[in-house]
């Protein structure tokens, strides 16, 4: 995973990459950067420098153009993460809906703080800003899935399910 030679999308993903690049006019392939970073993160869990270099080569842009973008947007992990990255919303409305208590429970259940990964590498907790689900809060997301109307009991169930 640290060796550049081993970093290569599987054929089906490469096909998807080429399909995405065709969405923009010729010469504007840099527009595919965010969508492809998402594909890369789905493949390798985080955006290592090697992964970002690979993305740059796919788009014929300089590596710095990928680094400066990946580091601007909060969804891209620039450090290794666990199998399940739990991103909970810490903004006002979710707090009104009881978020603080639920998130404290989540942290004590996993025995880690925000930004940390469990020793077994299964879970990482990150706090994020508003996820646009305020009326259904408290809410966290794990990859593309939203978990809404969270309670301490629901958190227990979700963690148990994902620990299997």
């Amino acid at each position, binding site marked *: 995973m640290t060796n550049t030679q081993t970093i290569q999308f599987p054929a089906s993903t490469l096909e998807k990459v080429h399909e995405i690049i065709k969405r923009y*006019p010729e010469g504007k392939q840099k527009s595919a950067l*965010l969508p492809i970073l998402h594909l890369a993160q789905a493949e390798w869990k985080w955006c290592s420098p090697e992964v970002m270099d690979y993305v740059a080569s796919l788009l014929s842009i300089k590596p710095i153009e990928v680094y400066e973008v990946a580091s601007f947007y909060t969804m891209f992990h620039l450090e290794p993460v666990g199998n399940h990255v739990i991103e909970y919303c810490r903004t006002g409305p979710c707090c009104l809906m009881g978020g603080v208590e639920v998130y404290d429970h989540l942290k004590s259940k996993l025995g880690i703080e925000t930004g940390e990964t469990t020793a077994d590498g299964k879970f990482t907790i990150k706090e994020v800003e*508003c996820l646009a689900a305020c009326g259904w809060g408290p809410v966290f997301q794990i990859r593309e899935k939203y978990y809404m109307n969270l309670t301490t009991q629901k958190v227990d169930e979700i963690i148990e399910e994902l620990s299997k």
Partner: protein
Amino acid sequence: MKILTEHIDVQGIETIDVFRKNGGYAAVEKALKKMTPDEVTEEVKKSGLRGRGGAGFPMGMKWSFLAKPEGVPRYLVCNADESEPGTFKDHYLMMKSPHTLIEGMIVSSYALGANTSYIYIRGELMYVATILEKAIQEAKDKGLLGKNILGSGYDLELYVQLGGGAYICGEETALLESLEGKRGNPRNKPPFPAVKGLWQCPTVVNNVESIAATSWIVNNGGDEYAKIGIGRSTGTKLISVSGHVRKPGVYELPLGITVEDFIYADEWCGGIRDGHKLKAVVAGGSSVPILPAELILKTTNGENRLMSYESLSDGGFATGTMLGSGGFVVMDETTCIVHNTLTFGRFYHHESCGQCSPCREGTGWMDKVLHRIEHGKGRQEDIDLLVDVAKKIEGNTICPLGDAAAWPVAAAIRHFRDEFEWHINHPEKATAKGAVFMREGASWSL
């Protein structure tokens, strides 16, 4: 009166067949076969529809600014980067009824003469992007997208673009930068996107809800749309409700109903959760001024406050607020205003792109000062310091994020200064678990 969500709970409405059985895509048939692009624009102008993303700028007028030089492509970009705290209406609409947006995209793209359009959606909503992409494929299979749509000679390709998690990309020029594969740093204006937008080509950027409303306007006419609502607040608005009401969620209402009805009627929010009292409301997303109960329900003239652009802003920022994006956050007497303001201050600090010094530095200072007040380490001069920092950000940045960061802090102090003072003067009491300030004689005090 519902025009966007009338069929939203129909089983299977996310599929094109059920959507069409419920009248879907009639606007595409009508616009492409019976109307010229200019006629569609004219109806949107007549409707008085105002941008639903928060700014409230007349949509037809925005369209009319679009430059149309020969041989240069034009673009329509849908702003689905919904990130304003308290706002989740576009999320709801796209997730439940994706074709409502796609139909509006086709009609609007046709009016603007765009042959390629993009829906820029916040990256966190990737599951919704999948729903939209499936719906786009369905529309393509039925000849509603692609080449020569319904034999009209009009071509349109529609793509969904994922963002990467950045509130600032809801600002239209930052969105365009992001769509070009760059950091979301807002551009200086002019030139406006209508002249130089995506890849320096003329571009219109509109919110999901605004675009979705154009189908109904095509079907029924702009004049009919303008009959809904009140005064210059025409049509219906999706309001996302969170906080301490019995029924949080998304409601479509005709502009002009009273705020009191909206909060207390069973048809809408159903009142404050049992045994509690209304303390304050943030009516239009985190950036608009918070109002205490008495000012959100009535203006200082004693008139009922209405859910409309004009009525909510009655009194200016001294005693009024804004409709904004329709993110309606309701707080009862258990709410600590200082804590809530801190979460908003922290939000803007996190989301500042860092381009302009007043915003980059100022949001950091406000976050820091709010944090120490909340944690019992506030100083006497801190309240005035916050007001001063907010003033120095406001109006001094390239994009409106600076204002959006300054307003909630300034308003919280304007209306709840005694609560901030209580935190500073009684740090032990204020930091005790579950402790909340009670104002003597206030309607919300226990």
